[in-house]
């Protein structure tokens, strides 16, 4: 029954939002609005278009940062995974990047790159790239030796082994890294708007908090989570169709 999964998803959403509604009505805190209040604030922001203006601003560093992290992250990850030298050279950088307390380093970035787009893109990249690089390189390095041996014994060239064996074998873990990295990128985008200059969604959050308009603040937070979830679902679809597509393509042509 394929609808069972959908039903369970809806049920879990109802339980979550119900709990939110109840917690808001108790209230847990004077600064915690109910679910319905937040949704009507979101509706109001949608109707007057302010949420779209905010996203036009927020999506710039987010999209650029995520695109750079995905492309460069996978490329560096492949490189690091395939060569021991580059493993020694690059792995420590990304491990440090991943462990670094980013919020504390933002003032340094601002000093170096100003308060503009560059700094924000960098924050997104620092959040998103390490996990993409580390997952990719780990997956590449763990390609089963017998697959590569099989490739060589059937006369595959080095390039063919990378393209036809190493990358497909690593792709589930690469995609897992992409999902983690992109969610971290969303966090980075909001973080940069809260810590560098308040623009876009970060501005809505900061401003509504300062005037105690908590429903709007939570509506903005809710919207960014929703966007992230939708995007990750899309990525999952891409992953499955990409693989099924390859197979179907091969069989039919």
């Amino acid at each position, binding site marked *: 029954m394929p609808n069972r999964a959908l039903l369970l998803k809806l049920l879990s959403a109802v339980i979550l939002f119900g709990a939110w509604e109840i917690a808001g009505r108790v209230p847990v805190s004077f600064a915690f609005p109910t679910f319905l209040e937040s949704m009507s604030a979101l509706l109001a922001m949608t109707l007057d278009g302010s949420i779209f203006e905010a996203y036009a601003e927020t999506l710039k560093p987010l999209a650029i940062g995520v695109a750079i992290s995905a492309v460069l992250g996978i490329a560096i990850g492949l490189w690091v995974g395939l060569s021991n030298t580059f493993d020694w050279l690059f792995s420590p950088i990304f491990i440090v990047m991943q462990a670094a307390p980013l919020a504390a380093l933002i003032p340094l970035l601002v000093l170096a790159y100003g308060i503009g787009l560059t700094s924000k893109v960098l924050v997104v990249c620092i959040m998103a790239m390490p996990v993409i690089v580390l997952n990719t390189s780990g997956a590449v390095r763990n390609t089963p030796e*017998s697959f590569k041996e*099989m490739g060589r*014994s*059937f*006369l595959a060239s080095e390039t063919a082994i990378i393209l036809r064996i190493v990358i*497909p074998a690593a*792709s589930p873990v690469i995609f897992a890294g992409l999902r983690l990295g992109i969610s971290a990128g969303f966090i980075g985008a909001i973080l940069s708007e809260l810590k560098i200059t308040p623009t876009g969604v970060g501005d809505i959050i900061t401003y509504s908090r300062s005037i105690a308009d908590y429903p709007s603040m939570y509506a903005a937070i809710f919207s960014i989570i929703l966007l992230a979830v939708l995007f990750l679902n899309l990525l999952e679809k891409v992953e499955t169709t990409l693989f099924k597509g390859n*197979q179907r393509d091969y069989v039919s*042509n």
Partner: protein
Amino acid sequence: MSQTKETITPAASTSFESAVSARNISKNYGDVEALRNMSLEFPRGQLTSLLGPSGCGKTTLLKIIAGLLKPTSGEVEVNGKKVTGPGPDRAFVFQDFALLPWATVLRNVAFGLEMRGVATSEREARAEKYIKEVGLAGFENAYPHELSGGMRQRVGLARALAVDAQVLLMDEPFSAVDEQTRRKFQEDLLQLVQNENKTFIFVTHSIEEAVYVSDQIAILLPRPSRVSEIIRPSNFRSKGVDNIRRDPEYLDIVDEIWASLRTYVE
């Protein structure tokens, strides 16, 4: 080789032509000596087993013949040509099947042809032919995880047959399948050796299996690894697959091999 002692039918061993010759092969992994000065001839069109206790270097020797490993010294010749790496004259069947899990049976079988640059339609036609030949017709579009262990090894075998190499290298190909499937495989292998004009090199740790399928059995002993004996069973296999396992010669050879191996098994 002075260390090689020939038994059973020494006369028969002089009349064959070698498809593969291994000459004075040594292989060291750091300080560990895996093979020392090993020489062995593999007669054309026949099946030679490499049999021995674990650690005797039989898989190492097979991979050196395949060109997947470089010997520290010595050389391998296939049809008179020195082996410098994997080549189109040899195909490998892996112990763990080594099937690509994201590819269908058809794609897996066609992999070797694809790497040789054979056009799509032709390689699919050839792959389909060999899929049928190993008894997997109807499973062309299945994925490896949907198949049983025995069926997976049939895919591995079809992949090796599809590239039409003269020498088939099999690394304990039946060790990961269940006993009944293994017996069926052994019978099929005899058929294959008879029908295909190929040279088979077969690594196994099962004495019965080696005696059952081989034209020539090379007994390898460890520490240091060497060929201790070459056994060429006479033609009890011509009496039909059903009679092999109760043939007196079959039973004698099994016992003899066990007698010479038992001291090396702790």
